[in-house]
C-alpha cells in the first residue's frame, strides 16, 4: 500500500500532555504574555521594570531547565524530545536571552537623545526565545515549522522596531526572504511526508532506510528543508539578508539574532540531518560539505572588504556558519561532531554577542544627533578606541582574538573540537579549507584591532566627550568577556556537558 494511504487510515493520535517536558517553554510563554499585558495596561512602565520582569521570566525558565536536566524522554507522541541537544541549547539560549535583555535595557540612545525603542521589545524577545527553545527540542517536522514561525515572526518585528529607515528596510528584507524560506521548508516537509507517510523524525528515520520507499521524493524534500535551514543559519547561497539585516537593525537585536538564531537553527539542523536522516548521509553529505566550503570562503572573503563593523560581523557570522556546517556534515557518522557543534555554538554565542556589545557601547558615545538614518558602526568610529576607552578596547580585543581562534581563548577550543571531529569523519580536506578561511578571517578581525589600537583618535571633540554611563551594558560586557576568557582557560566542564548531547533521541 502507498504510505500516504496507509497514513490516512490511522486515527489521529491524541498525545498525552507532558507538562514537565515543556516547562521551560511554558515559563517563557507565560512571561511573554504577562509582559504584553503589562505593556498594554501600563504603557508608562519603566524600562527597568520591564527588563526586570523579563529577567525573572528567564530565571524561572532557567530553573526549570535545571530541574529537567537529567530528564531524557520523548514526549507528546514523539513531537518533542528531551535529550542532550535540547538541554544544552536551552541553557545557551537562556544565557543569550539574559545578555540580550541587558543590551536592550541599555538601548542605543546617546546622552540627551530620546529613546525610540518600543516597550514591546521585551515580550517579543521572550516569544522569539520560546520559538528557539522549542525548535531545539522539536522532533516532529510540524513542531519544527511552528517553532520556526514563532521565532521568525517575533524577529521580523524586533528587527524593525525603531523608526530608523535602515531598520525598517532590514525588517522588510528579512520578512520577505524569510517568508520564502519558510515556504521552502514547508514544501520540503510536505514532500518528505509524501515519501514517508509521517512527519515524525523517528518515523522518517525508519522510512528513509526502507528500500521500498520513494527515495527521490524524500531527497527532494531533504533538499528543500536544507534550503529552509540554511536560510536561518545564513549559509551561502542563502545568506544575502544577513549583512543588510545585521547592519540595519538595532545592535541589541542584531546581537540576539546572530547568537540565538544560529543556536536554534543548528540544533534543528543537527537533529534532522544527523539524527533522522543519518541513514542517507552519503546522499546529503557532499551537498552540505559543498555549502560549507562556499560559506566559509565567501563569508571570510567578503568580510575583508567591509568598512562597517556590524556588516563585517555579519559576514564573519556567515563564515562561522560554514565551520559549523563541518560539524553537521560530520555528525551523522561521528557522534563527537554533535558535541563539538553544540560547544561551538555556546562559545560563539558569547563571543559574537560580546563583539556587538562593544559596537553598542561605541555607538552610544559622543554628542546627541537627530539624524534618523545615521550609521554608528563605521570602522572609523573605532580609531584610537584604546586611548579613549581602554576597557572597551580591551574587551573588543578579547572578542576579536577569540573569534579568530587564538589560544587560550574560548574560540580556539571550539574551532579545534570541530576540526577534530571533521578529521575523524574523514573530511580532512574540508578542515584544510576551514584553516584557509581562518587565515583570511585573521585579516579582518585584526583590522578592527589595528583601527582600535594602532591608529590615532579621529576627532579631538569626540575624544573629549565623557562616556555615557552604561551599567546594564557594562554588566553584559563583563559577563561575555569573563565567559570568553574563563571557557578558554578551563573548557573541560562545558565540553564534558556537551559530550552528553551526542545521543540524539527520536
Amino acid at each position, binding site marked *: 500500500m502507498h504510505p500516504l494511504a496507509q497514513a490516512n487510515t490511522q486515527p489521529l493520535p491524541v498525545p498525552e500532555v507532558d507538562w514537565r517536558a515543556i516547562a521551560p517553554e511554558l515559563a517563557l510563554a507565560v512571561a511573554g504574555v504577562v509582559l504584553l499585558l503589562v505593556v498594554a495596561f501600563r504603557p508608562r512602565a519603566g524600562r527597568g521594570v520591564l527588563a526586570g520582569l523579563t529577567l525573572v521570566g528567564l530565571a524561572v525558565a532557567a530553573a526549570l531547565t535545571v530541574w529537567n536536566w537529567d530528564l531524557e524522554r520523548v514526549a507528546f507522541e514523539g513531537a518533542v524530545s528531551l535529550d542532550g541537544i535540547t538541554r544544552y541549547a536551552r541553557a545557551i539560549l537562556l544565557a543569550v536571552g539574559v545578555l540580550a535583555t541587558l543590551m536592550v535595557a541599555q538601548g542605543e540612545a546617546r546622552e540627551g537623545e530620546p529613546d525610540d525603542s518600543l516597550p514591546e521589545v521585551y515580550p517579543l524577545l521572550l516569544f522569539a526565545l520560546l520559538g528557539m527553545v522549542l525548535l531545539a527540542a522539536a522532533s516532529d517536522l510540524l513542531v519544527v515549522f511552528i517553532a520556526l514561525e514563532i521565532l521568525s515572526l517575533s524577529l521580523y518585528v524586533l528587527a524593525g522596531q525603531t523608526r530608523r529607515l535602515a531598520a525598517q528596510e532590514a525588517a522588510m528584507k528579512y520578512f520577505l526572504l524569510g517568508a520564502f524560506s519558510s515556504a521552502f521548508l514547508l514544501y520540503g516537509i510536505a514532500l518528505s511526508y509524501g515519501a514517508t507517510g509521517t512527519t515524525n523524525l523517528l518515523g522518517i528515520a525508519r522510512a528513509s532506510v526502507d528500500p521500498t520507499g520513494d527515495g527521490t521524493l524524500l531527497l527532494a524534500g531533504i533538499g528543500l528543508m536544507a534550503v529552509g535551514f540554511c536560510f536561518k543559519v545564513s549559509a551561502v547561497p542563502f545568506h544575502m539578508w544577513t549583512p543588510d539585516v545585521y547592519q540595519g537593525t538595532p545592535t541589541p537585536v542584531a546581537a540576539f539574532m546572530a547568537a540565538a538564531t544560529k543556536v536554534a537553527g543548528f540544533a534543528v539542523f543537527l537533529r534532522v540531518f544527523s539524527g533522522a536522516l543519518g541513514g542517507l548521509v552519503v546522499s546529503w553529505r557532499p551537498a552540505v560539505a559543498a555549502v560549507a566550503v562556499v560559506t566559509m570562503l565567501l563569508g571570510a572573503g567578503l568580510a575583508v572588504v567591509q568598512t562597517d563593523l556590524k556588516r563585517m560581523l555579519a559576514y564573519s557570522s556567515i563564515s562561522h556558519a560554514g565551520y559549523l556546517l563541518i560539524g553537521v556534515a560530520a555528525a551523522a557518522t561521528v557522534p563527537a561532531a554533535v558535541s563539538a557543534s553544540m560547544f561551538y555554538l555556546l562559545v560563539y554565542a558569547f563571543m559574537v554577542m560580546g563583539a556587538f556589545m562593544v559596537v553598542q557601547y561605541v555607538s552610544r558615545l559622543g554628542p546627541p544627533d537627530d539624524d534618523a538614518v545615521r550609521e554608528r558602526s563605521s570602522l572609523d568610529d573605532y580609531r584610537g578606541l584604546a586611548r579613549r576607552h581602554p576597557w572597551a578596547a580591551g574587551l573588543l580585543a578579547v572578542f576579536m582574538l577569540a573569534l579568530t581562534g*587564538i589560544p587560550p581563548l574560548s574560540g*580556539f577550543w571550539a574551532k579545534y573540537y570541530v576540526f*577534530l571531529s571533521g578529521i575523524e569523519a574523514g573530511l580532512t580536506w574540508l578542515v584544510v579549507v576551514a*584553516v584557509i578561511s581562518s*587565515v583570511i578571517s585573521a585579516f579582518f578581525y585584526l583590522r578592527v584591532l589595528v583601527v582600535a*589600537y*594602532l591608529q590615532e583618535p579621529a576627532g579631538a571633540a569626540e575624544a573629549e566627550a565623557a562616556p555615557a554611563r552604561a551599567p546594564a551594558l557594562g554588566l553584559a560586557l563583563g559577563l561575555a568577556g569573563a565567559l570568553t576568557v574563563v571557557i578558554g582557560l578551563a*573548557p573541560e566542564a562545558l*565540553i564534558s556537558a556537551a*559530550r552528553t548531547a551526542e545521543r540524539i533521541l527520536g
Partner: protein
Amino acid sequence: MLLTATLFAPLVGALLIALVPKSDQGLARLVALAASLVSLALAVTLAARFQTGEAGFQLGQSAEWVPAFGVSYRVGVDGVSLPLVLLTTVLTPLAIAGSWRMADRPRTYLALLLVLETAMIGVFVSLDLFLFYIFWEAVLVPAYFLIGSFGGPRRVYAAVKFFVYTLAGGLLMLVGIIALFWLQQKATGVPTFDYEALVNFDKAPETQRWLFAAFFAAFAIKTPVWPFHTWLPDAYTEAPTTTTVLLAGVMSKLGVYGFLRFALPLFPDGAQWAQPLLLTLAVVGILYCALVATVQRDFKTLVAYSSVSHLGFIVLGVFAFNLQGLQGGVFYMVAHGLVIGGLFFIAGMLEERRGTRRIEEFGGLQQTVPRMAAVMLVITLGSVALPGLVGFVGEFLTLLGAFLANRVYAVLATIGVILGAVYLLWAYQRMWHGPLEREENRDLPDLTGREWAILAPLVAAIIVLGLFPRPVLERVEPSAQRVVEQTQASSP
C-alpha cells in the same frame, strides 16, 4: 614547581603592572624588572639543579588540564631547552632595562614584554604537544601589539604581515597536530598529546611526510627559513628596539627549536625525506640574506638580514642529523641570541642619540664614543665568529656537522661566513672608523651607567662562553645525542 614558577613569574608581573596606578610609572618599571629578575633567578636555580649527563627531561611537572581532549599541562627541561630558557630569562630583564626611559605608555609596553617572555618560555618547556601549540600561538598576540602599537612608521603593515604569515603556518601545524593525535589514538586507544607517547608510536613513512610538511610550514615561517623570511625585515625594523632584541634573540629560536624538539623526533622518516630541501634552503638563505645585508643603508635592517643569514647555519646544523651539527645548532642559538641582542641594543642606543639609523649618517664614532665603539667591536667580532668569541664555537660545530653530512653544503655555507665578515666589518668601518665628518656626531654622549648594565653582561657572556663553551656543550650533548638517535632510528 620551580619550572612552573619560572614560566609564570613574568605573567604574574604583567598582571601586577595592570594593578599599578597609571600615574606611577616608576613603580610599574620596578615591578617589571623585578618580575623578570625573579624569573631569571628561578631559571638559574633550575640550571644549578640540572643533572648534567642526563638525556631525558628533568625538573618537570604535569597535571590534567582538559582530559576530554587528552590535553595536559606537562613541562620539563632537557639539555636542549635549558640553555634557551636561560637565554630568554637573561635577555628579558635587559630588554626591560633598555626600555627604562620610554615615554609612550610604558606600563602597557612592559606588561606586553613580560607576557611575551612567558609565552616564549612556555614554547621551550612544553612537553604536551597541545600546550606547545597554545604557547606557540600565544607568542603572536603580545608580539603583534608590541610591533603594531609601539613601532616605527610602517608598524601596522609590519605587524599585520607578521601576524597573518605566522598564523597561517601555525594553523597548518594545528591540522598536523590533530592528525597526529588522531593516529595515535587509533593506534593505542589512549587520547593524549604527551610528547613521549607521540614520539614512540609507529607512523607510516608516507604519513610522516605529510605531517612533517604541516609542521614545516609553521617552523619554516617562524625561523624564518628562506624564502619564508619576508615578514622578518619589516617586523624587526619597525618594532621598537627592545622588542626587536627579544624577537631576534629569542623568538627566532622558536622555529629551529620546533624542528629540533618536534619535527625530527616525531617524524624521522619525514625529516630524512626533507633533508636535502632544508639544507638547500638553509644555504640559499645564508648566501642570499648575506648579500642583501651587504647593501642595506639602515643599520637595523642590515642586522635583521644578518640574523636570517646566521639562522641558516643553525638550520644547517640541525638538519645535518649528527651530534656535532645538533650540539652546535643549540650552542649557536644561544650565541646568536647574545650577539644579535647586543647588535640591536647598540642600534637602539645610536638611534636614541641621533634619531636615525642610516649608516651614512654616522662615521668616525670611535673618536666621540670610544667605549661604545669597543663594546660594539666585541659584539661585531662575536657575530662574525672570531675564534675565542661565542659565535665561533657555534659556527664551527654547525659547519663541521654539515661537512660530515654533505660536503657541498658545508663548502657553500662557508662562503656565507666570509660574506658575514664582509657586511658586518664594512658597516663597522663606515660607522665607527674614518674621519668624523658630521657635526651632529661630534658631541654624542658615551655609554651611561644603565647602558653599561645592559651591555656588560652580554659582552661578558660573549667572551666567557667563547673561551669556555664546555659547561653548555656538556649539558647539551646527551640530549642532542638522543635527538640524533631518534632521527636515525626508523630510517631504512
